[in-house]
């Protein structure tokens, strides 16, 4: 099913024309309403009239997370305060959080794109759908919530927290779909098993997973343990929240709601725009946003855009999996290491729980990497030789994938902290020195 075929299946020419028209309007709007952008454009000797088509986007300045911090709280807001009806904030691990104001029209667009996502996942008016993202300043909870309501399905605002209670509700209310982070989905699977229930006892059919990068192996694991089909949903609060892109039934790349969010891939070093099919940093321009519109916002997410036709009938460009974040990337002994690489290795080995922690340190001027993993209860053996072989097997696989050796530390089941929000998998002690 397709929620809005007019937009989701638009011909590429029509889309180009629509994006061009919207970009011109956006640039004029921010030039007159956001001093930050006016100053930047004037500094580049650029006026709104210079933007005639979407292809002219390369002339425009970028926006970074640092720009948002520097203009805290409302410096990049374009709409007057009287038009703002809601505010969300993204969790800033360092410095100021990012404050995003939404107008009534922004919220309508958000519900629209969320309804597109949910429809693509197979959710209909007849479904009862549970939102297990955190509700609050984080965009996940309320964003998904209003999308479910807009679609006409029944929403259960479960939020995160009492997982056992949530699982009982899924069983008793015949909830068919759930939106949460992939790591929380795994935690739900663990809890389900701990409660002595099986995936047959609950009737989950659809999982909408996002807010953190995940891997194909993780999808298989969640699908197997919860008995559902898991779809990627992508978004970021600076741009809107969940709903920026979504997977279709092909489960092979996420269609971007391109009529609202214009994607580009750039080389993070040279900032030059890269063609389809090339990996680089994902950049978004909010074509229709009123509250806090952004030009060429650098997401720091690394991925690839694809424009080949999709069998589902949607014409929108697809983005591949997020392979890492340009700022999450660890450089260990000069080698780029992404936590997602470690995760994909662990998920191929049934001996370990899909929970892990990377501890990076520097000892005598040499970087060290320790990978902590939990041994699954069924795989614990009284035979020390077998336990050591298990550890060595993981170390060998990590070495071949990462190209550097890691010290594997076997941990007791349940000892690594479960994240209910964005998974935190790295402790880099080098920064403290």
């Amino acid at each position, binding site marked *: 099913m397709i929620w809005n075929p007019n937009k989701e299946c638009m011909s590429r020419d029509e889309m180009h024309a629509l994006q061009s028209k919207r970009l011109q309007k956006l640039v004029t709007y921010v030039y007159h309403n956001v001093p930050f952008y006016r100053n930047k454009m004037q500094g580049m000797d650029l006026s709104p009239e210079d933007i005639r088509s979407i292809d002219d986007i390369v002339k425009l300045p970028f926006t970074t997370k640092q720009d948002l911090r520097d203009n805290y709280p409302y410096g990049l807001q374009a709409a007057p305060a009287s038009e703002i009806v809601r505010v969300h904030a993204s969790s800033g691990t360092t410095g100021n959080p990012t404050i995003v104001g939404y107008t009534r029209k922004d919220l309508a667009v958000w519900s629209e794109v969320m309804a597109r996502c949910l429809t693509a996942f197979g959710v209909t008016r007849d479904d009862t759908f549970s939102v297990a993202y955190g509700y609050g300043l984080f965009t996940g909870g309320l964003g998904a919530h209003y999308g479910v309501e807009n679609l006409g399905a029944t929403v259960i605002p479960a939020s995160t927290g009492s997982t056992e209670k949530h699982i009982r509700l899924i069983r008793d209310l015949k909830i068919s779909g759930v939106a949460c982070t992939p790591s929380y989905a795994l935690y739900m699977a663990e809890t389900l098993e701990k409660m002595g229930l099986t995936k047959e006892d609950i009737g989950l059919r659809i999982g909408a997973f996002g807010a953190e990068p995940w891997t194909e192996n993780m999808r298989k694991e969640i699908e197997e343990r919860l008995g559902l089909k898991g779809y990627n949903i992508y978004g970021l609060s600076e741009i809107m929240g969940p709903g920026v892109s979504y997977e279709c039934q092909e489960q092979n790349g996420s269609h971007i709601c391109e009529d609202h969010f214009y994607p580009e891939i750039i080389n993070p070093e040279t900032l030059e725009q890269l063609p389809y099919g090339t990996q680089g940093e994902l950049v978004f321009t909010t074509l229709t946003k009123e509250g806090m519109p952004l030009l060429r916002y650098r997401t720091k997410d690394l991925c690839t855009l694809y424009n080949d036709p999709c069998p589902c009938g949607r014409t929108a460009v697809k983005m591949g999996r997020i392979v890492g974040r340009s700022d999450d990337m660890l450089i260990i002994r000069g080698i780029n290491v992404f936590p997602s690489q470690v995760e994909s290795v662990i998920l191929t080995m049934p001996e370990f729980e899909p929970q892990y922690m990377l501890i990076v340190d520097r000892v005598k001027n040499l970087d060290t990497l320790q990978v902590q993993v939990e*041994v*699954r*209860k069924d795989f*614990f*053996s*009284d*035979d*020390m030789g077998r*336990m*050591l072989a298990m550890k060595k097997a993981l170390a060998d696989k990590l070495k071949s994938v990462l190209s550097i050796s890691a010290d594997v*530390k*076997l*941990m*007791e*089941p*349940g*000892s690594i902290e479960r994240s209910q929000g964005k998974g935190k998998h790295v402790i880099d002690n080098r920064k403290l020195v």
Partner: protein
Amino acid sequence: MTIKQLSVFLENKTGRINEVTKILGKHGINMHAFSMAESTDFGILRLIVREVDKAVEVLRNENFAVMLTDVVCISCPNEAGSLSTILDKLAEQEIFIEYMYAFAEGDKANVVIRPNDIEKCVQVLQECTCNITNKF
């Protein structure tokens, strides 16, 4: 003729063994013998207790990875040379010992043995009229 030994997976972390003994103590489970096999980052705690099933249950409830292993427990006189006679017999029959640990009680010494071939080990020990402990 074999007994069930309880094995518990432990991280090498201060106070972890103490956790196990505390849980067992709280449930009135007495340990007759134990040994610890260690590697750099984890260890395997091996225990002989009377209420094995109860011990498994209470430790699993506390999220420990636990398993049972068949071992042979023999008692021999607590005097020089008595153990080596028995070990010689096992070696003659090519029984390999993965690990063993012992504890003395007055004039007796108890030895827990994990052989590679448990049936053959029991057979050899019976033939040499060794005192096999079935129960504590």
